[in-house]
């Protein structure tokens, strides 16, 4: 009798322990990712936000709560010009990568017949990514430079009398390098959405009398919008945060927001750079929110 009662108690404790474990196991499973995101994403952002309110002089930062950094950042016309310039880069690069990315993805998805060939060509698109961004960027210099490939070819062919100056260290060079670096971020999501389009939709459209352009405009592009939105988010955030491309390809003649921050940091003006970073973060988040409002990407994820 006693033994039986003991057994029952032991059994119920076992059950309680098991149910606690079951309840906490979900948290345990989520913990690693939560810790990583917390330590490496949330904490740094919080630190940047905190530091952006600190005071500083040429040598040191002073914990404080002042809004001077924001007032200086937003009150300076240099900041506004730099933001406008960065937004201009983002808009041009976005338009070009969207155009090129869509056609590359469209060609891969609809004009290459075999899946094997599609995969091979897609991998070919990713081959440049085996080298670093910087190397790919710098490799443009011998091509575009004053005595570079393009200029020597143009001068040699007698098309221009003297080397073209705006090829390198110009907005043109910045945009060219960015398009080169970021087009694949547009190709991949668009290719993914295009591959999911049921081919019988194209036939149904043709059956209804649609021409190839009408099919493209009325069926394929609307269905590719989620992929375009994801690609847009990639490209816009990358361009908005870019400083190395702008610095190298403009030869220091153009500025971007991230480059401005980098300069502030090299002058040890960390709180000013932090305030700048917070403003940029808010701006980019607003842009992403705007994109998500226009296009529903949930079915892509």
């Amino acid at each position, binding site marked *: 009798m006693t033994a039986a009662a003991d057994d029952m108690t032991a059994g119920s404790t076992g059950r309680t322990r098991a149910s606690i474990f079951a309840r906490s196991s979900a948290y345990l499973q989520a913990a690693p990712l939560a810790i990583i995101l917390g330590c490496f994403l949330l904490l740094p952002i919080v630190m940047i936000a905190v530091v952006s309110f600190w005071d500083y002089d040429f040598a040191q930062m002073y914990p404080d709560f002042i809004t001077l950094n924001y007032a200086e950042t937003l009150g300076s016309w240099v900041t506004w010009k730099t933001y406008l310039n960065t937004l201009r880069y983002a808009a041009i690069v976005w338009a070009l990568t969207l155009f090129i990315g869509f056609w590359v993805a469209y060609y891969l998805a609809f004009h290459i017949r075999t899946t094997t060939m599609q995969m091979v060509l897609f991998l070919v698109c990713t081959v440049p990514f085996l080298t670093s961004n910087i190397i790919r960027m710098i490799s443009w210099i011998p091509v575009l430079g004053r005595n570079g490939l393009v200029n020597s070819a143009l001068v040699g062919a007698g098309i221009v009398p003297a080397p073209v100056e705006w090829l390198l260290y110009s907005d043109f060079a910045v945009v060219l390098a960015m398009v080169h670096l970021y087009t694949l971020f547009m190709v991949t999501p668009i290719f993914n959405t295009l591959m999911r389009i*049921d081919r*019988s*939709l194209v*036939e*149904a*459209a*043709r*059956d*209804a*009398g*649609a*021409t190839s352009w*009408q099919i493209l405009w*009325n*069926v394929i592009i*609307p*269905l590719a919008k989620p992929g375009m939105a994801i690609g847009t988010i990639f490209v816009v955030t990358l361009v908005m945060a870019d400083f190395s491309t702008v610095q190298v390809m403009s030869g220091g003649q153009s500025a971007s927001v991230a480059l401005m921050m980098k300069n502030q940091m090299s002058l040890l003006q960390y709180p000013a750079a932090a305030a700048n970073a917070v403003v940029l973060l808010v701006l980019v988040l607003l842009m992403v929110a705007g994109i998500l409002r226009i296009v529903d990407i949930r079915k892509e994820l």
Partner: protein
Amino acid sequence: MSKAAAIDIASVTKVYGGTTAVHAISLKVPAGSYCCLLGPSGCGKSTTLRMIAGHESITSGDIRLGNAVVTDLPPARRGTAMMFQSYALFPHLDVTDNVAFSLKMKGVAKTERRARALDMLKLVHMEPYATRRPAQLSGGQQQRVALARALITDPEALLLDEPLSALDPFLKIRMRAELKRLQTTLGITFVHVTHSQEEAMALADIIVVMNEGRIEQAAHPREVFERPATAFVARFMGDHNVIPGRVTAADGDRVTVAVPDGGAFAATGGTRAVGESVDVAVRTDRVRIGAPEAPGLGFTGIVDGIEYRGATVKLTVSGAGVTDFTAILSDAAFFAAPVKVGDAAPLAWGSEDAIVLGRLHS
């Protein structure tokens, strides 16, 4: 909406790379009839339909619709409309815009095309769902929308690629009645691809049985059922036993056929020379247990299996050189004199129930 076109397929062949999907088939579908292309998967029925629709190029031969040769015309200029197997509704458009799609392509103004689409939706009883997206509809509703979208082009022939295969059995039967009603109302030619014998029997004015890219038989369902042209048709329709053998005696259209190492069977309906190899078909539902009334109209075999099906009982019998011979008995007849697995049972049938089958000349 009243015009219907006859479809005339003249020795049409389709070759994909090295394989021939359709072998020089010829077929005439009269205007305003309901034609079912029936066959197992890979028999070329869908390819044939897609060639009529213009979604597949024709390797050789010609297709005429009414008086026009449409072989090289694009799909939209043939006067056909196709309904796709998965319905292929545009997921980003609402039901009305889906139906109005072809009008939009033609440049019809928005208010007019939406009004006409709504009329078409009324025809298929879908006007309450006009503003829904396809994803919000059930399979049967999607099918009605697909029908409306195909019919708004005012086609002379409607081509349906396995339209009922995605529906549950109950809905399948309801939709098939509706298809038939719609075809009768509109009076246009329907060509319907299916692999279901039952569906084809229920709907068609002409059943075209296809196998390996050839037409085995094209006839009224009753003829296909009662007088299958070939062993393939007899087996595929599933209501005949096929007994292959060699002719040992012939008298007009009556022959006696001997099965290797087995019995001899009498059959009618084909003039054959002695020594020719031939297939005999025996209707499964006409077989009864009992002694044959004449020699060659039955055999005695061992019962391999008994399957109770309610109104009928299915017996599988082997003997006299014939294996897996099926007899469908009424439950009353079976339970009046039941047999068990392993019993020897005498089977018999009438002289008109055994027919000689033809072969394709290929």
